[in-house]
């Protein structure tokens, strides 16, 4: 029969008690627990075990330490006595630390940096990986690996035999939200009426969305995001019931969602939650034309289900895959992909979840490593202090102090240091979190958009780290000190300390090895950043300003839009600092449209599809962003709506589909129209660095404003090349606003900044690795210097004898250097092995650099070796200057 839970718990607790207590009462305690748990509920027993067991654990361990040798009856039990002892230790530790301020400041600073950086990274990991989205029981939620159309979602949602509920998430779009006539761009997220229920999210005011809200052509209602409600409505509960206008349509606010809820992904933070059925009414561009609620071919929803308790994920996945294959009309090729159900948590990080995860893990690893190096360094410094206090400890032992008291006192000192470091570390953590906000995680996840705050969990981590580090670096010195031989320590200072120099060399080697790992990481990231900046972009982002508008949100029809685009361009081009300006409907680096094409005179191979990427641009576009023309011409003012449709192709496209023939005058098909090629340009990056050049096409902006594929009511972006881009930004805003004060205008800024985001992981890697590896290098230098001076001091007498017997200063220096560099050399070798085996972890973030890049590893080794040599040179020189007469007399 299995032992009851409480008994097993107590057996475990007993095992942690002092052996004497276990021997004396263990059997009886277990017997009692057995008897009691037969008559008490398990829950009550477990509660008791937690309270009583831990209490007695602390008491039984502390009692002998706290009790003086000859205790009057119960003295050890008097409340406060162990506390008083501890207080005494802490006071003494404080006095000792205050007596050597330099050491204390260095130690606290090291710890503060280490603990602070770790707290900050934990907070980031906590907010992204551990509990990214505030929903109820996220482990029950699964996400369909393929998006779905609305009719198909409705089929999935009927499977209540498998799911407690199935919801749909339609993404978050920019909307123009007008409150009392004042319009502002906001993010509207579309979700099925049952979504709040499925996610387990409540409303703080009013109500959440309900299935009855999610009906086609019904009145539009919305629920506000908590933060948006605070920011825009000042947290006024009376907002419930008010009517606002979204993209010109009236919408009634029915509630405010609970704090922390921000939809089902971290990559956008919605301001407003709307039912999916409102999507065709609210949307103005493409989405208003496609009929998203009835077309089963239009795929736009992320489906999320909450599993029933009695259904396994695999079972649900199999059922949904069957359903999926029935829903997909089986074509001649059959279906190529199976449907999987993915855990909800991975969904939070967007499409690049795996990359984000490994990137954050990397960051956590780096700061963890730095803290370890700091610990090794402090252990070394404390050993040196303990060595200096051997005589004092010897005296205390001789006078009757117990070893436990000595250990306790030494540990009090290191824990005091660590806790002080932890408190200072909180400040560092806050500063680091603020600094992190300017970076992006891979997948364009803005760190600034993720709510990062030091919460209870982060505080617990900080405090725990402080205690653990304090014990970690304090344990070895304390243990050594408690083993001090009373007689030897009182008789002479130097002998018996050689074992210590062994430990110290070991710690030093470990420190060097870990530093090398960090340095190598810094080197690889730096090299990678250099190559990333060297990758040809296909344009020149310097001196280019972009501004985005969305006329559809202001319900412009295509005629009015055409007038606006022309007038705006005219105004902007008239500004003195503007050299070139043009409209485009997309922004390179943020993705181009993707479509099927055909090329005249090119025979498609069987199963070959001509997928091309492209955008619509105005005449001066290529000049404005600095893309070079290779042949033919760019668009001109004569390429108007009525004229023959013209296009420009990229070199990659020309090479691939015209293959030696002259593409100028040739034709390709796009959006069911045949387009004549008038020019060839170099290709640009589409989404990320390092991607292979893809075939690209450019269509004339003016020729595509109207019609079924018209872009007039989609977002449009103005590209302006200027002599003085910084001053242009406010002017541009002014000029565009002058045309329409209520214009939905956003993202005005330097193109360079948005391009810089492409190399963001590399930048962030360089910044962090450089910071921490420099810190590690500094610590290693201190460590090497410390050990070398310590060894030199220990060997004063021996060196004196050597010099007396005729050793030259140079010989002594060489001897000291060679012996001092042994732990460094061993550390370097171990570090190289470690770094080489770890470097593939960052392979995904390296651009054109091998993770085993010999140049990086060579340079890093050289830097460490040179630093080590420099750090041990001074003590060696001092040792060589020893006066033999004095050295021998002193002993």
């Amino acid at each position: 029969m299995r032992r009851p839970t409480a008994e097993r718990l107590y057996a475990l607790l007993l095992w942690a008690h002092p052996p004497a207590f276990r021997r004396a009462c263990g059997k009886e305690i277990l017997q009692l627990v057995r008897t009691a748990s037969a008559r008490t509920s398990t829950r009550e027993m477990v509660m008791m075990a937690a309270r009583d067991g831990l209490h007695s654990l602390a008491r039984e361990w502390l009692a002998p330490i706290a009790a003086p040798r000859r205790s009057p009856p119960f003295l050890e039990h008097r409340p406060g006595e162990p506390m008083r002892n501890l207080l005494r230790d802490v006071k003494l530790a404080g006095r000792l630390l205050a007596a050597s301020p330099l050491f204390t400041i260095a130690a606290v600073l090291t710890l503060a940096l280490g603990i602070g950086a770790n707290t900050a990274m934990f907070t980031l990991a906590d907010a992204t990986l551990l509990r990214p989205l505030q929903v109820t029981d996220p482990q029950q939620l699964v996400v369909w690996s393929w998006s779905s159309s609305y009719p198909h979602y409705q089929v999935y949602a009927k499977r209540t035999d498998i799911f407690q509920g199935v919801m749909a998430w339609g993404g978050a779009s920019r909307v123009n939200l007008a409150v009392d006539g004042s319009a502002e761009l906001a993010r509207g997220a579309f979700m099925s009426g049952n979504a709040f229920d499925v996610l387990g999210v409540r409303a703080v005011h009013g109500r959440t969305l309900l299935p009855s809200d999610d009906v086609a052509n019904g009145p539009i209602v919305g629920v506000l995001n908590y933060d948006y409600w605070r920011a825009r409505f000042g947290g006024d509960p009376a907002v419930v019931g008010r009517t606002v206008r979204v993209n010109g349509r009236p919408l009634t606010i029915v509630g405010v969602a609970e704090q922390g809820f921000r939809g089902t992904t971290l990559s956008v933070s919605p301001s407003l939650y709307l039912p999916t059925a409102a999507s065709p009414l609210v949307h103005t561009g493409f989405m208003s034309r496609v009929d998203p609620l009835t077309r089963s071919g239009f795929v736009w929803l992320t489906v999320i289900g909450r599993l029933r308790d009695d259904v396994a994920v695999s079972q649900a996945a199999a059922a949904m895959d069957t359903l999926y294959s029935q829903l997909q009309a089986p074509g001649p090729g059959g279906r190529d992909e199976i449907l999987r159900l993915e855990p909800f948590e991975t969904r939070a990080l967007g499409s690049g979840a795996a990359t984000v995860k490994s990137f954050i893990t990397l960051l956590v690893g780096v700061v963890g490593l730095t803290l370890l190096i700091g610990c090794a360094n402090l252990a070394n410094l404390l050993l040196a202090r303990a060595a200096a206090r051997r005589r004092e400890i010897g005296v205390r032992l001789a006078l009757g102090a117990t070893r436990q008291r000595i250990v306790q006192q030494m540990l009090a000192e290191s824990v005091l240091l660590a806790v002080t470091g932890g408190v200072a570390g909180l400040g560092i953590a806050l500063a680091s979190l603020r600094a992190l906000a300017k970076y992006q995680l891979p997948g364009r996840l803005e760190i600034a958009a993720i709510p990062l705050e030091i919460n209870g969990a982060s505080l617990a981590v900080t405090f725990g780290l402080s205690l653990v580090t304090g014990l970690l670096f304090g344990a070895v010195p304390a243990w050594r000190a408690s083993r001090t031989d009373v007689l030897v320590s009182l008789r002479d200072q130097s002998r018996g300390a050689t074992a210590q120099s062994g430990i110290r060399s070991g710690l030093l080697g470990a420190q060097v090895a870990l530093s090398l790992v960090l340095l190598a990481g810094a080197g690889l990231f730096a090299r990678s950043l250099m190559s990333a900046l060297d990758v040809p972009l296909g344009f020149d982002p310097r001196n280019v300003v972009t501004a985005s508008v969305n006329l559809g949100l202001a319900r412009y029809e295509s005629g009015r839009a055409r007038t606006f685009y022309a007038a705006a361009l005219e105004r902007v081009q008239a500004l003195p600092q503007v050299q070139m300006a043009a409209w485009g409907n997309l922004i390179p680096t943020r993705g181009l449209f993707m479509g099927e094409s055909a090329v005249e005179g090119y025979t498609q191979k069987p199963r070959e599809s001509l997928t091309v990427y492209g955008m619509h641009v105005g005449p001066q576009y290529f000049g404005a962003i600095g893309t070079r023309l290779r042949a033919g011409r760019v668009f001109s003012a004569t390429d108007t709506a009525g004229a023959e449709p013209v296009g420009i192709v990229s070199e990659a496209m020309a090479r691939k589909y015209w293959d030696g023939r002259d593409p100028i005058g040739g034709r390709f098909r796009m959006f069911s129209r045949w387009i004549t090629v008038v020019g060839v340009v170099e290709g640009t990056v589409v989404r990320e660095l390092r991607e292979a050049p893809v075939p690209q096409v450019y269509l004339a902006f003016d020729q595509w404003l109207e019609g079924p594929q018209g872009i007039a009511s989609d977002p449009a972006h103005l590209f302006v090349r200027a002599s003085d881009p910084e001053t242009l930004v406010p002017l541009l805003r002014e000029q565009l606003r002058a045309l329409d004060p209520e214009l939905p205008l956003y993202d005005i800024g330097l193109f360079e900044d948005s391009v810089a985001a492409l190399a963001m992981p590399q930048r962030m890697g360089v910044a962090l690795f450089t910071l921490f590896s420099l810190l590690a290098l500094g610590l290693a230098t201190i460590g090497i210097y410390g050990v070398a001076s310590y060894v030199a001091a220990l060997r004063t007498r021996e060196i004196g004898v050597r010099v007396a017997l005729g050793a030259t200063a140079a010989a002594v220096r060489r001897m000291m250097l060679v012996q001092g560099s042994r732990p460094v050399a061993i550390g370097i070798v171990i570090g190289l092995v470690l770094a080489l085996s770890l470097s593939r972890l960052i392979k995904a973030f390296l651009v054109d650099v091998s993770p085993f890049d010999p140049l990086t590893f060579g340079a890093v080794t050289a830097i460490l070796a040179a630093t080590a040599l420099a750090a041990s040179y001074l003590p060696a020189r001092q040792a060589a200057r020893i006066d033999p007469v004095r050295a021998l007399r002193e002993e």
Partner: protein
Amino acid sequence: MQKRHARPDPAAGDFLPLSPAIHHILLALVDEERHGYAIMLEVSRLTGGSTKMGPGTLYGTLKRLLAARLIEEAEERPDPELDDERRRYYRISRLGARVLQAETARVSVLLDAARAKKVRA
């Protein structure tokens, strides 16, 4: 019982005031010998269920009480009301009884003073 002259009984007053755990255990044992579980139940009964003494605290305190000779171990025997398992019984010592008396006297002085000043429980 043979009295050890090298270490005479300490005065009962040396032990005062008693910690709640010790006070409870001495009270539980003053009228009869009990084993660990019975002490636990008795303490709970004496305090109207407000004090639940856990096994760790109980035996930790028993150990100290034994060391201070305020209680003594009786022989092991089964409890007729529970099962057949043999249990160790504890009883209060003469010193323990004196200490409990002294503590009761101390507490009742305080209690009387409190009542005289109309302090309500």
